[in-house]
């Protein structure tokens, strides 16, 4: 694919302009100044120019390096989280018209046959001035209702929209949120643009080891979902770090987790941000209370918020622009608002998040459409119908549960055996967080006059 060429700054320009970027992984360090004149795709950069490239590396470190090098060079960068099965990867590859895959592990199964570009040790660049510069589209997958991931298209300037100029004292960042998901990507981009240091977690690294590295580096700013923070608080390691800024995003930050964090980090600014892949960064709340000031609904600043039928709608220059490969889906309404499907209730001068509109389930910051799980369950030959819903959980926000109507409800097989087969099917086909934790067998599942499953509302 090709896209218009551009003079706009690319990510590498920001990294070189501010200098100071330093990425620390387990046993590896990358300094911003070293990136400009080097490549991890020696002799093959021109093949990637103007192409649609999948970032399929296992490690955050390799992904970060590839993103910095390929923004402005590739026409499209699709950033896949590390837990995608070959089947889901194949769906992404087909939808995004991928023609090259960046990988840091030989032999990895991407579910589709495309040229692989291994991340190699950096070597000097010799084509600096010959390659055209593209206005690279950044693409992040999210859960979709059809069983295939939906691809959300962004622009670098939109992803950077919430990032203010660098503070006097450069922060040292850490993120529990993987940089290949929107919340973590924000932190990575923040480090790039402000010339900060970022400590990245390794795939095989334990929480204790990661926090020990963060402590050694003197981490001052740290970000994660409420579920990530609960995990840290359930470990003996929380006291090892002494951050100035604690950020929560990706899930509802309830009073319990905000209070618990304030007790552990009394000197820190505890902020919960509202952001999503589609809506971008909405706002940040720093008064230590759950919810957000109702005054934000009336404000006409960079981000406009509206409540429509209880659901939060967002319009700003930070939202995504469209879905890729799906002409039937509209990301923005006619006025440019994104419907977030997050249900908000106003009480006096405060607004509170009440959960997701019936349908989408948020498991520790990972959003899941029930249809994606139902489709897999329904493939079992002894299943007539299934309905997947959320069950509240104090550790991960929500978990997934399923109701199943067996094909032969009158004379069901030993339901234990069917249950085990459904679990096995789900585990083989879905990421772990999407596998139901319980399956309940029911005689029938209600269908509305519209022919759709009757779903309970959030």
């Amino acid at each position, binding site marked *: 694919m090709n896209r218009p060429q551009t003079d706009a700054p690319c990510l590498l320009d920001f990294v070189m302009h501010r200098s100071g970027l330093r990425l620390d992984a387990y046993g590896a360090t990358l300094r911003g100044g070293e990136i400009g004149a080097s490549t991890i795709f020696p002799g093959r950069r021109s093949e990637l120019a103007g192409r649609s490239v999948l970032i399929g590396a296992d490690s955050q470190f390799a992904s970060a390096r590839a993103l910095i090098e390929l923004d402005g060079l590739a026409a499209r960068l699709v950033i896949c989280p590390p837990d995608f099965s070959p089947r889901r990867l194949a769906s992404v590859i087909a939808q995004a018209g991928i023609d090259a895959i960046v990988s840091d592990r030989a032999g990895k199964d991407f579910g589709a046959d495309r040229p692989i570009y291994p991340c190699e040790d950096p070597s000097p660049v010799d084509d600096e001035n010959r390659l055209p510069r593209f206005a690279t589209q950044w693409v992040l997958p999210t859960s979709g209702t059809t069983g295939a991931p939906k691809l959300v298209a962004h622009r670098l300037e939109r992803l950077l929209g919430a990032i203010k100029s660098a503070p006097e004292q450069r922060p040292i960042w850490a993120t529990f949120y993987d940089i290949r998901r929107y919340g973590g990507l924000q932190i990575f981009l923040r480090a790039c643009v402000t010339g900060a240091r970022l400590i990245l977690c390794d795939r095989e690294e334990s929480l204790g080891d990661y926090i020990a590295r963060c402590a050694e580096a003197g981490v001052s700013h740290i970000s994660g979902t409420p579920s990530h923070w*609960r*995990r840290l*608080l359930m470990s*003996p390691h929380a006291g090892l770090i002494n951050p100035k800024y604690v950020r929560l995003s990706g899930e509802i930050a309830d009073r319990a987790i905000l209070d618990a964090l304030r007790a552990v980090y009394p000197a820190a600014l505890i902020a919960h941000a509202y952001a999503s892949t589609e809506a971008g960064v909405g706002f940040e709340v720093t008064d230590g209370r759950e919810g957000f000031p109702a005054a934000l609904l009336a404000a006409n600043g960079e981000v406009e918020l509206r409540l429509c039928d209880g659901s939060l709608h967002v319009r700003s220059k930070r939202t995504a622009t469209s879905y890729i490969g799906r002409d039937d889906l509209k990301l923005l309404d006619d006025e440019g608002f994104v419907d977030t499907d997050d249900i908000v209730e106003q009480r006096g001068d405060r607004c509170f998040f009440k959960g997701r509109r019936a349908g989408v389930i948020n498991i*520790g910051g990972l959003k899941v459409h029930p249809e994606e799980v139902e489709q897999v369950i329904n493939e079992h030959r002894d299943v007539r119908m299934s309905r997947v819903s959320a069950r509240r959980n104090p550790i991960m926000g929500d978990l997934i549960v399923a109701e199943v109507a067996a094909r032969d409800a009158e004379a069901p097989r030993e339901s234990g055996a069917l249950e085990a087969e459904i679990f096995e099917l789900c585990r083989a086909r879905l990421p*772990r967080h999407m596998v139901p934790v319980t399956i309940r067998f029911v005689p029938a599942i209600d269908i509305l006059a519209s022919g759709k499953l009757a779903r309970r509302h959030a």
Partner: protein
Amino acid sequence: MSIRLTILSQIENVAAEQKKKIAPLREDLILTESGLDSLCFAILVARLEDELGADPFTASEEVYFPKTLGEFIGLYEQTPN
């Protein structure tokens, strides 16, 4: 079955299902070093709510995050169902 034994057997079940290798279940075992991750604990808490009829994490206003297996079991033993 006692609360303690119910918890221990559910930990074994969840670990087996999630294909996690767990450390010996001693009283002073650090939960984050047990081999179970957040999703495993989330499932464990849901299963225990079904079996014991109690969820100490949401039962009270004051939330306390246990760090060792002993503290985790104690939380359930102190929570009326």
